[in-house]
């Protein structure tokens, strides 16, 4: 393990009776990075986070913090602090007492507790709120107090369990940016659990996708979004259209896939595939475009599928066009909403959906 690895999880498994919450998870998180555990509800991401924090004892496997095996240590003996979804502030203590609680336990002198707590409240934008009780704060303010309480301990790994889930949409967006800025400011490792991909994309240096107790894929946020390796990642991250099919021919540059929607050409990119193998092709909805079948295709091998225009949903910045393909599957194409609100297609119109050749991603798993 390299010296700048903050967290290493090795073959981690957690069972609850017959239910497997985590299955042989291996992940390595670097010091100072903002790492996001993303996935559907019940996928195991919180179980993984809580195992790192010492709130869950794994059935098998190890958790290492800075190279030290902490698998059997309780939370108070680990170099982590945590922010909870339900705020978890101590209601009988004031804001300043909440923030200074960990320092008091560490027997830090009273004056220093006061100074550090005030500094931290200033950092999270809550100067002047120190004598208030938690119930006198809004949800966003309570979450900031939690952040201050965790950061004041100056531990180098901060665990955040769906910290923004209880906030309204606008506040969540604002807090996302604040979290990212805070992490850059303090420079410690943040491990953040969320099921919200926009939140994940906003804050993450790297994203790990967890579903059904398995670590599906992890990598830099842009890579996970733009070039997902696995079909599940493509189905979960971003709005992707998926075409399942069988490889017909392959050469060094292009693969031809026979799908129920038609023949699809996709870049080979060194994938090890054989003719007849089942594969999936994903294409992001925002790189697709719509044209009438009467328009001549740019090249005979340009990727395209035909269908019938169903409807247009106006989403503010973009329009979401829904097209029914010949095999009854639905494809979504997003385009920027025009200023006049007109849509050049009517329900029932035959359309052709096209995309740049390089935008197609091949998935063998």
């Amino acid at each position, binding site marked *: 393990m390299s010296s700048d690895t903050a967290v290493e999880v090795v073959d981690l498994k957690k069972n609850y009776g017959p239910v497997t919450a985590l299955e042989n998870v291996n992940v390595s998180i670097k010091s100072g990075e903002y790492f996001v555990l993303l996935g559907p509800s019940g996928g195991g991401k919180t179980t993984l986070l809580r195992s790192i*924090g*010492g*709130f869950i004892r794994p059935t098998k496997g190890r958790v290492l913090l800075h190279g030290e095996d902490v698998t059997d240590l*309780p*939370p*108070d003996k680990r170099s*982590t*602090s*945590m922010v*909870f*979804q*339900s705020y*978890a*502030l*101590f*209601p*009988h203590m004031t804001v300043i007492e909440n923030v200074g*609680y*960990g320092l008091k*336990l*560490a027997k830090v002198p009273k004056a220093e507790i006061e100074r550090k707590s005030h*500094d*931290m409240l*200033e*950092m*999270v*934008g*809550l*100067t*002047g*709120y120190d004598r*208030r*009780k*938690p*119930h*006198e*704060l*809004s*949800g966003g*303010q*309570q979450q900031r107090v*939690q952040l201050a*309480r*965790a950061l004041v*301990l100056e531990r180098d790994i901060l*665990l955040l369990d769906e910290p923004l889930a209880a906030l309204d949409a606008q506040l969540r967006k604002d807090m996302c940016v*604040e979290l990212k*800025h*805070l992490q850059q*400011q303090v420079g410690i490792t943040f491990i953040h659990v969320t099921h919200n991909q926009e939140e994940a994309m906003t804050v993450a240096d790297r994203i790990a996708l967890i579903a059904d107790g398995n670590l599906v894929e992890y990598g830099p946020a842009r890579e996970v979004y733009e070039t997902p390796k696995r079909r599940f990642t493509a189905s979960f991250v971003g709005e992707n259209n998926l075409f399942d099919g069988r490889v017909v021919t392959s050469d060094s540059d292009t693969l031809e896939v026979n799908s129920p929607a038609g023949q699809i050409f996709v870049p080979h990119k060194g994938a090890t595939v054989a003719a007849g193998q089942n594969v999936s092709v994903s294409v992001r909805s925002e790189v697709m475009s719509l044209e009438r079948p009467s328009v001549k295709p740019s090249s005979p091998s340009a990727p395209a599928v035909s269908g019938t225009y169903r409807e247009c949903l106006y989403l503010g910045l973009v329009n979401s066009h829904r097209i029914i393909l010949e095999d009854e599957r639905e494809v979504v194409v997003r385009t920027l909403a025009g200023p006049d609100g007109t849509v050049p297609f009517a329900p029932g119109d035959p359309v052709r959906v096209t995309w740049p050749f390089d935008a197609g991603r091949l998935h063998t798993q």
Partner: protein
Amino acid sequence: MSEYGSIWGYRAQWAYLLLIVATLMSPVFYVIYISFNENGFGAAEYVFTLEWYGLIFSDRLMMNALGWTLMLAFATLAVTVPMATIAAKFYKATRHKVFTIFVLLSPLFVAPDILGSALLVFFKNTNNMFEAFSDYLGTEFFYGWFQLGFMTAWIGLIIYTMPYAFIVILITIGRYNEQQTEAARACGASGWRAFWDVEFPQIRAGIFSACAFTVILSFNEYTRTSLLKGGFDTFTTVLISQMLNEGMSEQSYAMSSLVSFVAIATIGTIIIFTMIRSEQLQRKAQPKAEPADAPETNAEPQKAAA
């Protein structure tokens, strides 16, 4: 009351409730009334006096019994409440809730005289076994360990009061957010420290209520205590024995009134305190968007002072 309900229906419900309370409490109030009569129970003339209250403390038999009762009550409290707290925490954490609650409440399902006599037989047999074992070893060390006395009455009362204390504590512990304990642990607190600093202040009302209930239940208990007490007397055993043999003395009326008054005042205080606390918690559960006299929220996080 429903927005569309009849005001008379609402008043009738209150009248019904008050009637029940009056019916249940009128004998107690009658005892209190007699305790202030110089001529005692059944006299044609009522003359107000505090004399009987003054004589309570001169009744040696009664005072001795009261001493034993208080000792038993507080010894029971010392064991029952911590056990009930641990049981309530366990109940909250376990996935096998039905079985756990059945086990913890099972003493309530057994009639007091059956449970008392079962314990009596159990302690007698256990005592005989210990004595036989002691004889076998050629020592007197195990003699009288389970002879009827303070300890057997104490065990009987613990079994009796435990389910009540458990339920009372469970009501407050059930509302406690366990993530606060986790948050305290994440701040560096040990399990005990997290309980003492964070959980206890929030479930204190339930624990104190359980203490009060345990003391009152122990104080009032007759059947199990009389079967298991051995050679000493408690307040209720003296009172009932007096009543059966000689009729109640005037001091007994005064003592009963005093005990009733203390019990009603204690329970009333607990109920009022719990209701006030519950309203406070409800208010706290709705966080205000912005405190009225709060300073302006800093929109963006600021750099910490160096």
